[in-house]
């Protein structure tokens, strides 16, 4: 039924060899062709393809805001526009430079310096030429860019882009600037550091906190940058036709977390105002929880001036300013003056070198080691017990007590109250202060301790150094009945356990009553700063910055005036606030520092009543 046409099949089969040859020839051809396209010129085509396709634009994350204890803004963000150059898309650099000069009168040199920076980065990376440009300028550039269509145009803005970037906004101007800190463009060292620990989180030109809270909580505030993918053609023009729309993927930035501080915005501002241009520091905190209501350091800088377009010159001036604007004085070390008598009194009672009711005669000073140690009251205090010695700040009493104690026993109590070490407040610039001991002197100077030096230490002079923050904590511990608290600036940091200081209740009670007398007693040193609204306890201090002999030599210049101190708590019966005030070269603590503390305490209770 079917044909069996088998004749000639052998002959036909012999021709199949041509088929094999054709297949082989084609394959050799294709191997060479693909080899040429993919291997020899692969990189070229790959570059060509890359240039055509995706451009990843980073969308900076909005930095977290910093709020006060009642969630009022201390720092937040405002939108700003930056002029950037993307070297990859610059076709004619000279023309671009000229266009920018003509259009927005951007100095040639400024463009050149940005260009030098840009050249060290990947060509697709946008480099900032100018920060925070006006909306008007941005609009003019955009219009010029849209209307420039071809080679024949007289201007060339290819490679220029305007990008949005959030910058810091300071609604309170310079208030609290020393706590908040500021941002600067990331340094190359930091960049290398982060590139290792947290790749792609930071890029050149990013802002990073370099002081205060901004530095301490950088990683929390920073957030995570997002990115947007754009499709561009070979000449860098964006393709936005609907068929590529689905490719325009976007990863939204993750904004940084807000930080809620323990600071009270209103109290902070009020406290800063009370310094009336004097330099100094103030720490006001809750003596039970360690929450800092207010932390003042003056003079300070205006953070707005640091938020964009800082020139090296401006920066140099800021750093070199003799007023030391960048210093946070609340955590710097100062001689504590008579405020240190609080500690001497506690040590003396605990070590039982003196009984509370035991009286020492003050005749205006003490002869010791061939030298006369003055009491501040030339006429002397007469027979004085501990309570009166504190209230009236009798130096002679504490010289005697100090001699009995010795410097090392004093240092032991200083350590119990956390003096001589950092408080644990998260501020990097915090100093430790200095609590001298015999061993310390031996080690540092190779000399034995002289008993006369102990006299100075007992009244807070000599080499002892305390920060305003430490002093506020010392008075807090007296006020709260012997708890060593951890200061904090973060509202929601969680309960930080306070330690019980191994000092008897009775001792602290005696000292607390005596500190009440400082204000309440008519002969108390701070009686002039008593408040009609609230009972206050405290201790004045007047710290010499230069010895008596030195002062006689150089004369009484402003820079050699004593530092004025006042540490306080209120109300005496149930303390709600503890304050340490330091006025640099303010003179007497009673007249320069105590009034500030009083006003701040009154303001505190006024605010508390409102809330």
């Amino acid at each position, binding site marked *: 039924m*079917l*044909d*069996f*046409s*088998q*004749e*000639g*099949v052998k002959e*036909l*089969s012999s*021709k*199949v060899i*041509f*088929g*094999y040859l*054709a*297949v082989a020839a*084609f*394959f050799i*051809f*294709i*191997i060479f*062709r*693909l*080899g040429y*396209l*993919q*291997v020899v*010129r*692969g*990189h*070229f*085509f*790959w570059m*060509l*393809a*890359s240039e*055509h*396709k*995706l451009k990843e634009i980073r969308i900076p994350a909005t930095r977290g805001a910093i709020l006060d204890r009642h969630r009022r803004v201390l720092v937040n963000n405002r939108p700003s526009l930056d002029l950037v150059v993307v070297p990859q898309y610059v076709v004619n650099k000279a023309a671009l430079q000229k266009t920018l000069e003509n259009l927005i009168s951007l100095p040639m040199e400024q463009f050149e310096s940005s260009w030098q920076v840009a050249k060290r980065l990947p060509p697709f990376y946008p480099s900032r030429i100018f920060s925070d440009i006006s909306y008007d300028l941005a609009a003019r550039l955009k219009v010029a860019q849209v209307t420039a269509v071809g080679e024949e145009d007289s201007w060339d803005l290819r490679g220029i882009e305007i990008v949005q970037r959030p910058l810091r906004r300071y609604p309170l101007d310079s208030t609290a600037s020393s706590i908040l800190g500021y941002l600067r463009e990331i340094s190359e060292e930091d960049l290398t550091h982060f590139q290792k620990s947290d790749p792609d989180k930071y890029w050149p030109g990013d802002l990073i906190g370099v002081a205060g809270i901004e530095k301490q909580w950088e990683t929390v505030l920073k957030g995570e940058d997002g990115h947007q993918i754009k*499709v561009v053609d070979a000449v860098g023009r964006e393709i936005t036709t609907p*068929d*590529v*729309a*689905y*490719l325009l*993927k976007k990863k939204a930035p993750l904004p940084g977390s807000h930080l809620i501080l323990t600071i009270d915005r209103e109290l902070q501002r009020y406290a800063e105002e009370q310094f009336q241009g004097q330099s100094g520091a103030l720490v006001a905190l809750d003596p039970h929880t360690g929450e800092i209501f207010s932390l003042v350091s003056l003079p300070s800088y205006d953070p707005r001036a640091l938020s964009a377009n800082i020139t090296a010159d401006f920066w140099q001036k800021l750093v070199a300013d003799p007023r030391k604007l960048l210093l946070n004085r609340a955590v710097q070390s100062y001689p504590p003056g008579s405020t240190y008598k609080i500690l001497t009194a506690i040590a003396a009672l605990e070590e039982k070198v003196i009984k509370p009711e035991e009286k020492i005669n003050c005749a205006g000073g003490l002869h010791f080691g061939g030298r006369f140690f003055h009491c501040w009251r030339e006429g002397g205090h007469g027979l004085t017990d501990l309570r009166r010695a504190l209230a009236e700040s009798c130096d002679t009493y504490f010289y005697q007590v100090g001699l009995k104690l010795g410097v090392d026993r004093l240092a032991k109590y200083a350590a119990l109250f956390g003096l001589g070490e950092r408080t644990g407040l998260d501020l990097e610039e915090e100093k430790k202060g200095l609590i001298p001991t015999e061993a310390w002197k031996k080690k540092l100077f190779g000399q034995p301790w002289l008993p006369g030096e102990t006299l100075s230490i007992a009244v807070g002079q000599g080499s002892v150094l305390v920060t305003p923050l430490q002093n506020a904590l010392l008075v807090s511990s007296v006020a709260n009945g012997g708890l060593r608290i951890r200061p904090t600036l973060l509202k929601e940091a969680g309960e930080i356990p306070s330690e019980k200081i191994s000092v008897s209740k009775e001792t602290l009670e005696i000292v607390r009553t005596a500190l009440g007398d400082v204000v309440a007693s008519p002969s108390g040193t701070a009686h002039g700063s008593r408040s009609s609204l609230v009972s206050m306890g405290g201790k004045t201090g007047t710290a010499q910055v230069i010895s008596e002999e030195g002062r006689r030599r150089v004369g009484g210049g402003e820079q050699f005036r004593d530092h004025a101190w006042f540490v306080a708590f209120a109300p005496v019966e149930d303390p709600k606030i503890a304050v340490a005030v330091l006025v640099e070269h303010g003179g007497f603590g009673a007249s320069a520092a105590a009034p500030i503390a009083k006003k701040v305490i009154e303001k505190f209770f006024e605010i508390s009543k409102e809330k």
Partner: protein
Amino acid sequence: MLNKTYRSHFHWPLLGVTVALVFIGILNLHSATYNLARGETSPLLWSQITWLVIGTGVGVFFLILDYRILIRLAYPAYGVSLLLLILVVFFGKTVAGNRSWLVVGPLTFQPSEFAKLALVVVLSRYLSDHLKEKGGYGFVDLLLPGFLSALPLFLIVLGKDLGSALFFLVVSVTLLLFVGIRRQVLLFCFAFILIAGTTAYQFVLSPHQRARIEAFVNPGADPRGKGYHILQSKITVGSGRILGNGYLKGMHSKLLFLPEKHTDFIFPVLAEEWGFVGSMVVLGLYGALFVFGLEITRKARDRFGFFLALGITALLFWQTVINLSGVLGLIPLTGVTFPLLSYGGSSLVTILIGIGLLLNVSMRRFMF
């Protein structure tokens, strides 16, 4: 259904290569049509898989059926294919400038694909009936097979699908060359094609066809216009480099710079994602397919089987050559798709029938 001898002579390697290529084809089509933004599989893929199932069924049918039945069915099948092509001329649907689709209910198919196979069958029948002992075919001998080839070719040109038409010519010529053609006749034909070609270029080709040839000669002249396709294709292939960009990561093709990436330009998608190495592996499989086809041709037990196997192998081979040479910028683009890789139901079914027939010829080679 199939006895033991059939099973023992079954060409397993050919089946294996086919399955592998079908699998690669589906994977690659998935990548070519994948919607990156929504993470969605294209409906085109499901359509292709449906056609694959249909094609496998029909292919198996043509495998089981003794191929010699086609000797009798050759002319009727050829007639039906011509009829369908005529229907296309009058009722065809136009896609991308080519009128080559017929719509029957839910099905849209391309009769020119099936016509390829019908032509191979009818030529096999004619050539096995008219084998010359000495000297090969002269002018007169070529008239009838020439006419058989020219009819569908003419109908396809009417539908403006010049690429497919040329492809028909190449397959017919391949078969005729194996029968044998006298030398003078060959030389004459060569000269004729040269003259006819230039004339056609000037007067017959449509502007868009001329543009493709111009673009081939000088693709850089107008990269956004006429040369766009071929340049984009070369960029896509080249950017794959040695190891490729990875599956679903061929951004150049994904970004729609590459046109018709699921049909004519399917190979660049593969080349971009799998690079030189991957391309070579896949092309190696095609090489094996052709070699197995030729082996079956060589071992065919009768003349009809010989020409059938040769014709199908030529069909696959030339389709690959024409498409690949086009997308790699070696010849002008023709619109011929890549066998098994390109999207297209009619083409897939046709190829699976073809491979079914190849297996059929191989399986029955020792049966008397």
